[in-house]
C-alpha cells in the first residue's frame, strides 16, 4: 500500500501539504479513501492488467519468438525484426500507410477546416441541417460506406467517373488501378471527416469577437483575419485533428479490407488490393496473424506500429511547439 504513496503534486489537488511529504503512514481516513478509490476504479484496474499490460508485454515477448498459435512460442531473438526489415511486403505496407498519413490526413484536415469556416459565418440559416449533412457520413457503418464507394468509384459505371465523363474527363480506374487506389481511400476519408468539422466548429465558437473587431480596426481583410486571428486561436484543435488523424491512418483497416475483398483477393486469400496497392500496415498485420498464423512476426509488426505512432505523435507535438497557442499558458 505504501508503494502507492506519492510525493505531493501527484496527490489530489489541494490536499498535499509540506507536512505530508515525509509521512508515509496513512491515517485511518486516508486508508479508507484509498480503499474506496481502488474499489471504484477496480474494473479499470482489472481491465488494465488483463487486457492492456499483460497482453502488451506478452506480444513484446512473442515478437522475439517463432509462434504459430498451436505450438508453444520458441525464442528466436531478433529474427522477426530482421525478417521484417528484409520483407518487401512490410515496406510496401509502410509506404502505403505513410502515403495515407502524409497526403490524406492533411487534406482531410484542411477540407474540414474549410467546411467549418463556411459553417461558422454569421447569418447562415439552417446551420443545424448542414451540420447534420456533413456529419452523416461518420455515422454510417464503415463497411456500408466502403461498399458504397466501390460502387461510386467503379471505373465504367461509377457515378464519379460518369460525372467526370460529362465534363470531358476520362476518370481513373480508382481501386482497380494501383496508382489511384489510395486516392480513392483518401476521397472516402475526406467525405467522412464530419467529426473533424464538428471539433473545428467548437473551437471556432470559442474565438473572441473582440479579436476580430480589433483586427478590423487595424484594417485587416478576410485573409489576414483568417491567417492571424482564426488559425492561431484554433491551433490546438488543428493539432488535435492532425494527431488523431495520423493515429487513425496508421491503423486504417476496415475500408481497405472491404474494398480489397470486393475488388479481388490474392491467391492465398490474403487481402491488399490490386498489386498490394491497398495493403496498409494493419492489413499486413492481419494477414500475418490471422491468415498465415505467424503470431510472432505479427507481434513484431504490432510493436513497430506502436513505436511509429509514438514517434509520429512526438514529432507533431514538437513541430507544433511555438506554433500552437494555448490560452491558459499565456
Amino acid at each position, binding site marked *: 500500500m505504501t508503494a*502507492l*504513496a506519492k510525493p505531493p503534486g501527484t*496527490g*489530489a489537488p489541494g490536499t498535499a501539504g509540506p507536512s505530508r511529504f515525509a509521512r508515509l503512514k496513512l491515517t485511518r481516513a*486516508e486508508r479508507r*479513501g*484509498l480503499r*474506496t*478509490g481502488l474499489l*471504484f*476504479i477496480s*474494473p*479499470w484496474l482489472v481491465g488494465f492488467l488483463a487486457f*492492456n499490460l499483460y*497482453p*502488451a508485454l*506478452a*506480444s513484446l515477448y512473442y515478437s522475439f519468438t517463432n509462434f504459430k*498459435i498451436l505450438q508453444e512460442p520458441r525464442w528466436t531473438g531478433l529474427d522477426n525484426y530482421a525478417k521484417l526489415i528484409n520483407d518487401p511486403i512490410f515496406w510496401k505496407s509502410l509506404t502505403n500507410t505513410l502515403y495515407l498519413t502524409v497526403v490524406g490526413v492533411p487534406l482531410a484536415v484542411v477540407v474540414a477546416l474549410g467546411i467549418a469556416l*463556411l*459553417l461558422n459565418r454569421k447569418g447562415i440559416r439552417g446551420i443545424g441541417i448542414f451540420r*447534420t449533412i*456533413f*456529419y*452523416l457520413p461518420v*455515422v*454510417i*457503418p464503415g*463497411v*456500408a460506406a466502403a*461498399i*458504397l*464507394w466501390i*460502387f*461510386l468509384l*467503379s471505373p465504367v*459505371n461509377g457515378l464519379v467517373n*460518369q460525372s467526370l465523363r460529362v465534363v470531358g474527363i476520362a476518370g481513373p480506374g480508382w481501386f482497380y488501378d494501383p496508382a489511384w487506389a489510395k486516392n480513392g481511400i483518401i476521397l472516402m476519408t475526406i467525405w467522412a471527416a464530419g*467529426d473533424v468539422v*464538428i*471539433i473545428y*466548429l*467548437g*473551437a471556432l465558437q470559442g474565438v473572441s469577437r473582440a479579436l476580430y473587431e480589433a483586427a478590423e480596426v487595424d484594417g485587416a481583410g478576410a485573409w489576414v483575419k483568417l491567417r492571424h486571428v482564426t488559425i492561431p486561436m484554433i491551433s490546438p484543435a488543428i493539432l488535435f485533428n492532425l494527431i*488523431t488523424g495520423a*493515429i487513425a491512418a496508421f*491503423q486504417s*483497416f*476496415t475500408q481497405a*479490407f*472491404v474494398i480489397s475483398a*470486393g475488388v479481388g483477393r490474392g491467391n492465398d486469400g490474403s487481402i491488399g488490393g490490386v498489386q498490394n496497392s491497398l495493403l496498409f500496415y494493419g492489413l499486413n498485420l492481419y494477414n500475418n*496473424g490471422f491468415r498465415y498464423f505467424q*503470431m510472432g512476426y505479427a*507481434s513484431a*509488426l*504490432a*510493436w513497430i*506500429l*506502436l513505436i511509429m505512432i509514438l514517434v509520429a505523435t512526438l514529432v507533431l507535438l514538437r513541430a507544433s511547439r511555438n506554433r500552437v497557442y494555448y490560452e491558459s499558458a499565456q
Partner: protein
Amino acid sequence: MVALIVLAVVYLTPFVWMISTSLKTLQQSLVSPPVLVPNPIVFKAFTDALTKMNYPLAFRNTLIYAVPAVIGTVVSCSLVAYGFALVRWRGRNTMFLIVLATMMLPSQVTLIPLYVIYAKLGWINTYLPLLVPTFLGSPFFIFLLRQFFMGMPKELMDAARLDGASELRILATIVAPLSAPALITVGILTFIDKWNDFYGPLIYLQKPELQPLSLAVQVFQTQHGTDWPLLMAASVLVAAPLVVLYFFAQRKFIEGITLTGLKG
C-alpha cells in the same frame, strides 16, 4: 452560402445515389447516363437483401453485442470515473495518467496475446471477447465522465455523506441522475461504435450464424460482387437504424464529438 450548398449537395450525393440504386433493378442500375429517380421504383432488392443476408438474424446478433456493451461501458466507466473524480486517495492522479496513457496503445499490440488467451478459454466464436472488456471501463469515456463529475456541486454529496450515505449510493442517487446527459452521450457513442465494429467480429466470430450486421454485409458483398441494387439495399438496411438514431439524438452526438475535441 452558395459554396456551402454546393458542398452539402456533393456530400449528400453518395447517400442519394445509394438509395436511388437500391430502388432499381440490375438492368436499371446499368443505364448510362445514370437516372436519379428510378422508373418504376422497385423494392425487390430490399426483399432479396433481407432474406439472402438473413438480416433478422444479423440484426439480432448486432443487438446482442451492442446492448450489453452499452450497459457495461456506462456502468463501469461511471464507477471508475467516480473513483477518479470524487473519491480522494493517494496516487489517484498518477493512476489517472496511466488511464490516459492506455489511450495511446493501438489495439493491434494487445490483439495477438488476447486472441491466444481467448482461444485457450474457448471464447472464440462467442461474444465474450467482445463483451467482457466493455465491463472493465474504456479510457476515453472514463476521461469524459471524470471531467463531467468534477464539475458537479460538492455540497449535495457532502450533505449525503453527513447523512451516512455510502459512496456507491451517492453515485447512484445523486451523481448519476445529475450526469444523465453525459451518460447518455457515452451510451450512444458506444452503441454506434459497437454497431459499426468490424474488426472485433472479424477476428472472433467466424461462424456465420453469430455474425453481426457489419460482418454479415461484408460477407454478403463478396458473394454478390456487382449486383449493385442488392448491395446498396443491404448497405441501406445496415446503415438505416443508426441514421434514424442519429436524427433523433443529434445533439448528443455533436456534444460527444465536441467533448472529444476538448481534450486536445
